[in-house]
């Protein structure tokens, strides 16, 4: 990413001299955590009002409801160490990625055996496939993890629900308890019960009926009746978590 930024700002001596560890990004005043998937950040922070009134003519027209291109502010100084993890090297990025895959695997099966048993080469294929956007390479290793054997139902769905205020809730959702046909709406209602705190210290108002649930995954407003398991199998991110934003 930094090399793209450097290319984009060739005349700025500040950019040319920017130390990689000092660079950070924001959108509309929201800090962008580099260790979150960019699509998730987009879902979290984009409002339809962000749409440029006159999109540049040379950019492809996009039909989605949300605006593209996405304006991001690049900061070259005053790194907010208290709010962001220190900028990664490619090695720490890979470490974090594999650690997240293991956490998700631990939720799915209660152990990390399947990942620990991957050969060095297979682990590197998983990472390379992800970094190079080579789906087949990634999925050859990723598919047995996400989908498992025929009919495999994860012990718990690796599911994280984000709010636009930046709160994250990760709770174990057991389909053997809730039922394999549990919908995203039921899962969200399960997560946000009257006792639960979702944003800051404000208790969410309790309700006995499924919440009017508007959830974004990969920029798509998901039909509340979509089964969570189906959504997980088809819409999980490369770290094998399902990341969804509650609107």
């Amino acid at each position, binding site marked *: 990413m930094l090399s793209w930024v450097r290319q984009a700002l060739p005349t700025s001596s500040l950019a040319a001299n920017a130390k990689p560890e000092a660079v950070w990004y924001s959108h509309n005043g929201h800090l962008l*955590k580099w260790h979150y998937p960019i699509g998730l950040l987009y879902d979290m922070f984009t409002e339809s009002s962000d749409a440029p009134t006159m999109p540049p003519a040379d950019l492809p027209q996009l039909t989605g409801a949300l605006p593209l291109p996405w304006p991001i502010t690049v900061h070259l100084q005053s790194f907010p160490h208290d709010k962001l*993890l220190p900028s990664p090297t490619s090695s720490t990025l890979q470490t974090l990625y594999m650690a*997240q895959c293991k*956490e998700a695997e*631990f939720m799915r099966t209660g152990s990390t055996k399947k990942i620990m048993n991957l050969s060095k080469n297979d682990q590197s294929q998983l990472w390379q496939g992800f970094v190079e956007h080579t789906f087949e390479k990634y999925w050859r290793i990723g598919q047995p993890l996400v989908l498992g054997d025929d009919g495999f139902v994860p012990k718990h769905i690796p599911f994280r629900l984000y709010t636009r205020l930046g709160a*994250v809730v990760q*709770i174990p959702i057991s389909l053997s308890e809730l039922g394999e046909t549990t919908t995203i709406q039921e899962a969200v*209602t399960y997560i946000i019960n009257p*006792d639960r705190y979702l944003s800051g210290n404000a208790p969410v108002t309790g309700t006995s009926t*499924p919440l009017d649930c508007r959830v974004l995954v990969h920029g798509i407003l998901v039909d509340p009746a979509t089964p969570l398991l189906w959504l997980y199998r088809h819409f999980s991110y490369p770290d094998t978590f399902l990341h969804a934003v509650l609107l």
Partner: protein
Amino acid sequence: MDQRPDSDETAQPQPPPAISPPTSQLGAKPPPAKVIIRFKAVGNAPILKRNFFKINSALKFQAIIMFLRKELSYKPSDPLGFIDAITMTQFVYISSAFSPAPDETIENLYRCFETEGQLIVNYCTTAAWG
């Protein structure tokens, strides 16, 4: 008007449950404000005088690492010392299985990974389950 067979009278259609099954039975309750962390040393890592502590569940995993470093009186040059926040997590694990990201909340980790009411944190001086 159709006469319904008797058997149908006993099998009254149920109204669709609002949330099925009720969440109150499924442990979807908030974790305690403070949760118990049990530390376990791996390999040559020094052991703590006391190995369990209560910690505010609103804190992040990074707070556990910092706490551990303080308890072990580690200096930045030591193996558990500062390399960077991510590399550092490689020395601290949940349930001998994985290292969470430094900004994951203890609350979420406890909900997902508690064992008999405790969050088991393993630590070592070389990456163990890397």
